[in-house]
């Protein structure tokens, strides 16, 4: 019968055309999302210039320069003698190579195609490129869980979320730029393996995990989250052979690949961060064996086997657990690294590791920062969680677990809101997509134009299902009905009847759609504002707008440029550790301490020197071969992040190692003060003198615009240091150590101050520099 066949064929071709159109639309939307993600991160390049931001990116930039100049073997074996003088730093073994290798590869590829981009340009634009990749990976992950509509929604939201923008603007050349892409892509491959059970995707998953290990120390999140999810699946009775295929090869291959990266090395099998994965590996094998034997035996025999195994197995388990606990308990930190411990116990860092506690990124976030960073998503996420439960699949339970753990960690450290951002975006994308789906469906089914199957509000739905079901069984003669149903674009019949039961009235659903669009509009406006105003400052160049015009403060680069051109190659510069990376990268000088902060004692030495009186500080710096000392001073223009405000950390860190620095000596009524009420130890310290030397000449009174009072000691001379350079707005001040006098006649003449007596008082424990 040709007629029904042609109708089936034409409805089939209509379906194919519809699918093709859908695919093209999807691809085009993904392209637009990519363009959006890239361009929203370009505000800093437009407002300032194409420059590397902050502190850490300068180190990565320097490493990438070295890689591009000397090749990969030199990079792998590089021992850097220009930082942490005189200790040096093994770069090959202590840096996460993913970011630099990625940017180096892009640079090499472009240059071999004769597109002569400089290393700096490639470094600046690496982050926006990888955020494009991250949004596409989000689309793939959400599509695996809930379908392409939710995927597109989630990808759009991630392209704009301010939390991710803050760490991936053009110029923010830091590990998170590629690590977030690797995180989402690894999760996508894991979910894909879980859904399909294909060993091919399991291999790709392990390779993507390897890329994540190369890129960021946060890979421990993955290697603990996935075992948690496997355990959750086992406990809730969702064990399947796909779970085994998704997890077991990942652990074996992943551990090996992680051990390949020099930074991780044998930590991949010896630290507590990885023990959870091994434990769940064993548990999974036990469960798989149990299910296999259950399939072989009859139920009665299976019960017998279980009782037998449990008695023997428990005994063995207890013995093994006792050995493991004894091993772990014997190490002081129970096998965990300091950073992981500070995540699990938020108060750990403030008690034991002042350096971790001093970084502002490691403080717990305030409530407003949640609204600033993920905005509207904060209340769309619970709707997404509910939507994940109807129906609950392995993939959606994984997303819920990911969200819950990342919410906890984001509450411990502000910096980890970045890990929360993809989870929040995915769940909000799911929520919004479901909401739009319900509302548009209810509007579609209430249109009066089509045939009587889709009549008014959902009232008559009880008899129409049986009607349409009968229709589906009489295929050949009802080709009209079938064509009409196809032209509505519906899926199988019983699905459609279910949808009809969820129908809302037409008016409210139109209002609902309008309101959702307005909500998304608010989100977009906020994201663009946050990207333009809040997160695009390069912090190496400052701007301010005042009544007499627009000012640009380029003092940092001025100072580093002076250092680069007016000092010898081998001169050593001492400053607080914040500026180490910038000094080595831009001024090309050897520094004493830098942002890597791996040696607490060395940092404490510099802190002690800054907090000591001039002569003691000179002794300390001379023993380290320092020639120049650099301080940041914001008192003239009101820049609040200067060294006087950071001074409390110098005292605390120095005091934690050298007992002659006592914090109480610097406090007056519990405050650090530099005016006339300040303690004499404070007013005699090197930091005070270097910052405020000749400051009184600027306005005659010495009014500090940050601290908002006049300084205490106004007229003083420096005996052991001489000023060599002060930048235009007095933000960076560079001093040189005066060489020792040739002749010392009799008693050394120096100003009698409390320092000698306080040092004599400490008696037994003398500092090594006296």
């Amino acid at each position, binding site marked *: 019968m040709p007629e029904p066949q042609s109708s089936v064929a034409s409805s089939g071709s209509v379906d194919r055309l519809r699918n093709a159109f859908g695919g093209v639309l999807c691809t085009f939307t993904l392209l637009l999302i990519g363009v959006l993600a890239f361009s929203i991160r370009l505000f800093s390049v437009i407002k300032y210039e194409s420059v590397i931001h902050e502190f850490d990116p300068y180190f990565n930039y320097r490493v990438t320069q070295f890689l591009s100049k000397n090749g990969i073997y030199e990079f792998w074996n590089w021992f850097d003698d220009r930082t942490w003088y005189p200790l040096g730093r093994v770069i090959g073994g202590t840096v996460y190579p993913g970011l630099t290798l990625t940017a180096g590869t892009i640079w090499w590829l472009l240059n071999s195609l004769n597109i002569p981009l400089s290393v700096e340009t490639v470094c600046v634009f690496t982050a926006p490129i990888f955020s494009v990749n991250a949004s596409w990976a989000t689309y793939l992950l959400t599509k695996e869980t809930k379908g392409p509509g939710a995927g597109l929604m989630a990808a759009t939201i991630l392209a704009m979320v301010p939390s991710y923008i803050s760490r991936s603007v053009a110029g923010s050349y830091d590990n998170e730029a590629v690590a977030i892409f690797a995180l989402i892509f690894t999760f996508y491959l894991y979910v894909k393996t879980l859904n399909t*059970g294909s060993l*091919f995707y399991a291999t790709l998953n392990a390779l993507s995990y390897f890329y994540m290990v190369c890129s960021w120390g946060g890979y421990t999140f993955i290697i603990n989250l996935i075992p948690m999810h496997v355990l959750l699946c086992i406990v809730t009775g969702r064990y399947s052979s796909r779970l085994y*295929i998704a997890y077991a090869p990942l652990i*074996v291959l992943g551990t090996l690949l992680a*051990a390949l990266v020099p930074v991780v090395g044998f930590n991949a099998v010896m630290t507590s961060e990885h023990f959870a994965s091994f434990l769940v590996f064993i548990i999974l094998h036990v469960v798989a064996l149990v299910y296999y034997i259950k399939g072989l035996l009859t139920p009665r*025999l299976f019960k017998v086997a279980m009782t037998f195994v449990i008695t023997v197995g428990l005994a063995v388990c207890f013995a093994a657990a006792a050995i493991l606990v004894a091993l772990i308990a014997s190490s002081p930190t129970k096998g965990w690294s300091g950073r992981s411990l500070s995540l699990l116990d938020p108060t750990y860092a403030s008690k034991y590791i002042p350096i971790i506690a001093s970084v502002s990124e490691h403080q717990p976030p305030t409530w407003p920062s949640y609204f600033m960073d993920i905005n509207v998503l904060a209340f769309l996420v619970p709707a997404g969680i509910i939507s994940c439960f109807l129906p609950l699949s392995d993939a959606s339970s994984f997303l819920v677990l990911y969200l819950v753990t990342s919410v906890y960690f984001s509450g411990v450290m502000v910096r980890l809101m970045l890990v929360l951002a993809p989870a929040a975006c995915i769940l909000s994308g799911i929520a919004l997509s479901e909401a739009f789906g319900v509302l548009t469906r209810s509007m579609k089914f209430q249109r009066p134009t089509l045939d009587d199957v889709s009549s008014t509000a959902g009232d008559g739905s009880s008899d129409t299902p049986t009607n349409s079901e009968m229709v589906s069984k009489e295929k050949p003669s009802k080709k009209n009905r079938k064509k009409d149903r196809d032209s509505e674009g519906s899926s199988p019949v019983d699905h459609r009847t279910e949808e009809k039961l969820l129908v809302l009235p037409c008016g409210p659903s139109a209002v609902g759609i309008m309101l959702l669009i307005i909500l998304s509009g608010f989100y977009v406006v906020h994201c663009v504002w946050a990207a333009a105003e809040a997160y695009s400052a390069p912090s190496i160049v400052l701007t301010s707008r005042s009544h007499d015009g627009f000012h640009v403060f380029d003092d940092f680069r001025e100072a580093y440029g002076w250092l680069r051109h007016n000092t010898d190659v081998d001169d050593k510069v001492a400053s607080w550790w914040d500026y180490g990376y910038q000094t080595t990268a831009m001024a090309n000088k050897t520094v004493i301490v830098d942002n890597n902060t791996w040696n607490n004692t060395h940092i404490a030495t510099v802190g002690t020197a800054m907090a000591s009186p001039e002569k003691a500080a000179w002794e300390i710096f001379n023993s380290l071969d320092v020639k120049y000392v650099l301080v940041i001073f914001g008192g003239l223009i009101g820049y609040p992040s200067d060294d006087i405000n950071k001074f409390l950390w110098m005292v605390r860190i120095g005091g934690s190692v050298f007992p002659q620095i006592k914090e109480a000596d610097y406090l007056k009524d519990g405050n650090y003060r530099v005016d006339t009420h300040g303690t004499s130890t404070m007013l005699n310290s090197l930091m005070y003198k270097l910052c405020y030397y000749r400051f009184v000449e600027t306005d005659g009174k010495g009014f500090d615009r940050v601290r908002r009072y006049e300084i205490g000691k106004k007229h003083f001379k420096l005996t052991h240091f001489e000023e060599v350079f002060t930048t235009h707005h007095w933000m960076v001040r560079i001093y040189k150590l005066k060489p020792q006098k040739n002749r010392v006649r009799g008693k050394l003449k120096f100003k009698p101050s409390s320092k000698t007596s306080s040092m004599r008082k400490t008696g037994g424990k003398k500092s090594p520099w006296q």
Partner: protein
Amino acid sequence: MPRATSDAKLLIQSLGKAYAATPTNLKIIDLYVVFVVATALIQVAYMGLVGSFPFNSFLSGVLSCIGTAVLAVCLRIQVNKDNKEFKDLPPERAFADFVLCNLVLHLVIMNFLG
């Protein structure tokens, strides 16, 4: 007590009978897994005798054994005709995936062996 021993004997007998009914290709894979695990145990015993330096060689040796065992178990899962989830996966595809994954694993092992 005697009931327990007779139960245990009955258990082992029925396990043996049920296992004998599995197809030959699956039994070959099981034999391979047993061989690989035995190799791993021999390596651990050797490490106990002579010490664990160089540690990366020991780790790569043991993990290569465990890795091939895991991959062989995955192959067995995918090739097993009783497994309803994989009934439309051709066994050639399963074997190709197995070979690919083994290649990646051994590439990493070769690199890590030192």
